Structures are given as structure tokens and as C-alpha cells.
């Protein structure tokens, strides 16, 4: 469980976090989004206990992070942003070191390492020096360190950055699996990732929370404020002429030719003014001009568009 209340962080005069509030319930995976410099890493550093906030409260697993309670830290798995590792260690040494720091005994260490190695598919590089591993494998070592001691809460700062598409999917599935009985806060710039695995999303911008909710809630909210574009495909006269006629329709801002299925059949995207429904007018135009309508689809709002909308 993570509860952040009016968390504020100043770096000198600069306000990196400005009274942010959100909550990740136990067993939930939250996607933590925001443009570069929004304050995601700063928030996560505070939650992991690396530095205290200037003001406000951060509670992880029922403990205020400022207590610096060592028992509490055992219940947090943290993957820092740049995935720092001791390059001179082998994977085995790195995992043994983390287990020892958690105070695991020999038996539990063996068990924990075996599990983490399996979860992160590290068998093939277990005895290799980390310096000689590819970026993706290093990322997995970082992740294995974070989840080694079976923490209740995982704080993962861009866990899939630098991985190849296959690995991204694997790590995603792993996080999803781990998230079934853990609380996960996950920062990322990849929207499909959020769509695929996150139960809830919080978007921050310039140190403030600008949107929070399930992915569907966020999309619904944004749909109210910006009606999506419309894609139509029709058989008509020349492209220029068709574009001009479409543009005459009230509420239409731009018309852009998108593709052509075959000669004479073209697809256009129509950019619409906020809140105006132009579908009837388009239909009328089709009839009036004697065009043949092949397709008319209001474009779905993607999480990406929501993101761009709220962080404008």
C-alpha cells in the first residue's frame, strides 16, 4: 500500500513536487506517468526512503517513510531509474549480497535466489560478471534484486527501458504476475505498457497531479473535452475537390488525406472543433455530392492522447 499526501519537494528554490496526492491500494499496479522532469523519479526516491520530502506525508505499508524504519525497508523492493549495479560482481554475488543485506539466512537465501533467477530468467548468466551482460540482462538483474526478498511493495522506475520487444513483453508479464499479490508503482513512458498491465494511472506534470484514475476513466474524461477525430473513406471526385467540400462543413477544422484503397477511393482524417458532432453533416455532404461512403469511424482516444491533453 502506498499513500502519498500533499507531498512537496524543493531543490533549493526549485519546486520539483508541488503537493501531490495519490494512493495505490494493496494489490494494485499503478502506472506513474509524466513528461521528462515531471517529478516521477523524485517521488519514487522519497517513497524508497532515499531522501525525505520537504513537506507532506508518504506512507508505504502503513509506515511513514520518514521513520526510516529498517523493517519497513525490507518490505520495499526498489529499482532506481538508471538501474545502478556493481559491475565487478557476478549475478550470483550481487544477489547474495542483497540477500545478506536483508538478513536472510543460508537456506532462505538459496530459496530466494532460485526464485528470483527463475522469475527473471537469469539462469544463463548466473555466474557471469555483470559488466559483461547486455543492457536487458542488467535490467533483469536490477529487477531480480528488487524482488529478491519478496517485498510487499515494488517501486520500479522505468523497468523496461532499453529492453528489446520480446524482453519488454516478458518483463511486463512478470510485473503483471508479481502484481497479483503486491502493490506496484511503475513509472514508464510507454503507453501500451500502462494499457496492458496497470490497474490505475496517475499522471503528473511539473510536480502536480493532473490526472488520476483507471485508464478507462481517464479516457472517458478526456473524451468529454475533446471529441476525437473522424476517419472517413469514400469514393469521390478529385482529392482536392473532396477536401475542399469537406472543409466547408461547419465544425470541421482540417481535412487530411490519409490513404487510398484504390484509384478513386480515398481515406481522410477530419479534425473537428471541440464538442461538435459532424457525422450527420458529413453524411449529408456525401449524399449531396453523390459520393459513395465506404467507412466512417470516430477515432478512439488513446491513452497517449489523454497524456498529451493533460500535460499540455
Amino acid at each position, binding site marked *: 500500500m502506498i499513500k502519498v499526501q500533499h507531498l512537496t519537494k524543493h531543490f533549493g528554490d526549485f519546486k520539483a513536487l508541488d503537493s501531490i496526492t495519490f494512493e495505490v491500494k494493496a494489490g494494485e499496479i499503478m502506472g506513474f506517468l509524466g513528461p521528462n522532469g515531471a517529478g516521477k523519479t523524485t517521488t519514487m526516491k522519497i517513497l524508497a526512503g532515499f531522501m525525505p520530502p520537504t513537506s507532506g506525508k508518504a506512507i508505504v505499508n502503513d509506515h511513514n517513510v520518514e521513520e526510516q524504519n*529498517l523493517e519497513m525497508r525490507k518490505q520495499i523492493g526498489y529499482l532506481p531509474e538508471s538501474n545502478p549495479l556493481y559491475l*565487478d560482481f557476478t549475478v550470483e554475488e550481487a544477489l547474495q549480497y542483497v540477500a545478506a543485506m536483508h538478513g536472510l539466512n543460508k537456506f532462505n537465501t538459496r530459496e530466494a535466489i532460485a526464485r528470483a533467477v527463475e522469475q527473471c530468467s537469469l539462469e544463463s548468466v548466473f555466474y557471469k560478471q555483470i559488466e559483461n551482460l547486455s543492457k536487458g540482462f542488467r535490467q533483469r538483474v536490477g529487477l531480480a534484486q528488487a524482488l529478491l526478498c519478496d517485498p510487499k511493495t515494488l517501486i520500479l522506475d522505468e523497468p523496461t527501458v532499453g529492453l528489446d520487444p520480446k524482453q519488454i513483453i516478458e518483463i511486463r508479464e512478470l510485473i503483471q504476475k508479481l502484481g497479483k499479490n503486491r502493490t506496484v508503482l511503475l513509472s514508464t513512458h510507454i503507453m501500451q505498457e500502462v494499457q496492458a498491465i496497470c490497474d490505475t494511472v496517475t499522471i503528473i506534470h511539473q510536480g502536480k497531479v493532473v490526472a488520476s484514475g483507471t485508464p478507462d476513466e481517464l479516457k472517458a474524461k478526456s473524451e468529454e473535452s475533446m471529441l476525437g477525430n473522424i476517419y472517413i473513406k469514400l469514393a469521390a471526385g478529385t482529392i482536392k475537390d473532396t477536401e475542399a467540400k469537406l472543409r466547408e462543413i461547419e465544425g470541421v477544422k482540417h481535412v487530411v488525406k490519409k490513404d487510398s484503397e484504390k484509384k478513386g477511393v480515398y481515406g481522410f482524417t477530419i479534425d473537428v472543433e471541440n464538442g461538435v458532432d459532424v457525422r450527420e453533416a458529413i453524411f449529408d455532404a456525401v449524399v449531396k455530392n453523390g459520393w459513395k461512403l465506404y467507412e466512417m469511424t470516430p477515432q478512439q482516444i488513446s491513452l497517449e492522447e489523454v497524456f498529451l491533453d493533460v500535460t499540455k
Partner: protein
Amino acid sequence: MTSIWTITKKELRHYFNSPIAYVILFIYLAISGYFFAYNLFLNGVVSMRSYLQTIPLILLFFVPALSMRLLAEERKTGTLEHLVTLPVSDIEILLGKFLGALSFYVVMVGITFIYPVALSTLGKLDWGPVIGGYIGLVFLGACIIGIGLFASSLTSNQIVAFIVAFAIGFVLYLVGQSTQYIPAVAGLVDFLGFTSHFNNISTGIIDSRDVLYYLSLITLMLFLTLQSLLNRKK
């Protein structure tokens, strides 16, 4: 407590994984061997006295080279962020690192104990000052490691950490050498500097005043390091 030991082992592993530590070890043995042989053949007496008086100045170069990486490197690579968020306290981290560097140092200085052993085969060696001298070297080295740890906590640049540690150590060394120039405060200056305490111990008589001096300097340095480590939180 076990965390301190875990960190000590980790630091030793870093030392033995890195070529720099072997280079330092090798050059230290070469240079100290040179001074040992030089003093032996020049003076032709069965005594470690002049050797033990030369070594502290050499340690001012070598010990900061051992300690410079302790925190600066972790800060630079970002592993410090991981380390301080593990379930260990900051003081355990510092003690573990301090003991790690100290262990390596003791091994390094311990190897040179073959010099007095070799010397004793040539004639009758007075072991009192020799043992005292080596104990003095351990105290002195521990102090410089403390200084080096502090210097290393100030920066992410190991070279800067080295220079700062060397400068602080050198000032303490010079202070001890300057008693005759400032007679008014000679007693104070004598107490503050490295030299007199090292000389006292290396007569073979271990006075609690000297031990107290070293222990308080180490404690002060660990305290300052802790403050500087906590400073990340500002």
C-alpha cells in the same frame, strides 16, 4: 551488526576485483621495500627506527588512494541510491566501509612485517619499538582512512576525494612537524599533529592519550561523514 560485516566483505570484494588495489599494493610494497633496504644498508644497524619514521609520509599518499573510491564511486555510479535504501542504517554502511578499507590496509601493512622478521635473523632486534611502530601504523592508517572516507563522501569524483584526503592528512602531518616554529602553542600543536602520537607509540609504550587521540579523530571523521551522507536528504 551482520550488515556491517556484509558491507565489509563487499568492500573487500571490490578491492580484490579491481586492478587498482593490486597496483596500490604492489607499489606500496616496492616503495616500502626500497626504504627498508636503503635504511638497512645506509645505517647498517639492526633497527626499524628510521624505516618507521619514513613510512607515515608515504602512507599519506597510499591510504587516500585506497579510500577515495569508498563513497565517491558509489555516488558516481548511482549504487549509493540502492545501498542506502536497503534495510541498513547509514552508520552501518559507514562502519562497514571503514572496516573494509582498514582490512585491506592491514593486509598491505601486515605484509611488510616480513622486513623486521628478516632483519631479526641478522642480529638482535629490539621488538618493542617494532611492534609499537606497527600498531602505530595501524592507528595512523585508520585515521587517514577516516579522513579519506569523509573526503570521499563529499564528491562523486575520486580524484577530488584523493586530493582532499591527502591535503587534510598532510596538514595534520605538518602541524606535528612545526612545533619548533610556533613554540607558544607547541603543546597544542604537538597534540593535534599526527607525528608525536605516532612517535610515542612507536617507542613501544602505548599511552592512552595517544590511543585516545586516534580514536577521537576517527570518530570525528565518521561523524562528519555521516553528516555529509545525510546531507543528500536536503
